[in-house]
């Protein structure tokens, strides 16, 4: 998505990326980035929370107008939860699941080989 945004900027169309993977977007480097520190999946606000979603959209619009240089990141004020438990569940690797992940990888590579041949 960041690569598309960069291409639009190079061709005089201002853009704003709205997302939650801060490192990925900032490494790629975009003109404007509206960051919400949520689990991946809901960069435009908590599901069914219209008020938050409208606020995030309007922050993105304001950033379109207000940024005066590239790499402008603005973080929205919203929190997903009081605790940080959600941060450790996505792509979790632990002693408990390492064997399962290894087997999933083997199955996926076998499937990819099958498609190739």
């Amino acid at each position: 998505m960041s690569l598309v945004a960069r291409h639009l900027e190079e061709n005089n169309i201002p853009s704003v990326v709205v997302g939650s993977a801060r490192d990925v977007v900032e490494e790629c480097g975009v003109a404007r980035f509206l960051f919400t520190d949520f689990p991946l999946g809901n960069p435009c606000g908590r599901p069914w929370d219209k008020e938050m979603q409208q606020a995030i959209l309007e922050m993105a619009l304001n950033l379109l107008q207000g940024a005066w240089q590239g790499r402008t990141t603005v973080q929205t004020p919203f929190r997903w939860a009081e605790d940080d438990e959600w941060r450790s569940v996505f792509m979790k690797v632990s002693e408990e699941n390492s064997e399962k992940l290894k087997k999933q990888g083997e199955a996926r590579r076998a499937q990819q080989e099958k498609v190739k041949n």
Partner: protein
Amino acid sequence: MLKRRSHRSFNCYIDLSREYYAAHGYTKPYAWVYNHEVPFSRLEKPLSQCRIALVTTADIEKLPGETLQERHRHRKVYAHPSDKAPEHFYTQDLEWDKVSTHTDDNESFMPLNRLARSAAKGKIGSASPRFYGVMTDYSQGRAMKKSAPKILELCREDGVDAVILPAL
């Protein structure tokens, strides 16, 4: 109370995914794009006169019986009428946190109704009559040489002044 942490608060998905795929037995980590230079364009007119478009990585649908591999092979950049959005976008093939949340509410990742509301309030001139879809591509070359120019072409066809790109 003063809070202290020995690490940054937000998740680092480059680190997480490298470790996750290494645990799957992949020996060569994915190389993410890094750029020092960043292109920047100014908005040439007030928001209240601008036509704004949305771009999503979600797909319109997955055909019945189609495998994920087939879906990925067939996916193309698309444009779709904004007033005929699917009830549910297809997102199951994308990497998002399926433990902590869900994508049952389109507006949480593709705010077409919220954008229409901003147009109705006069915050923007108009919402583009079409929104655009682009696949999350493992191939950065394909994303830059094929998908991005196609999105640009669609924006120009619709007279779009600026674009919002929510990344799932």
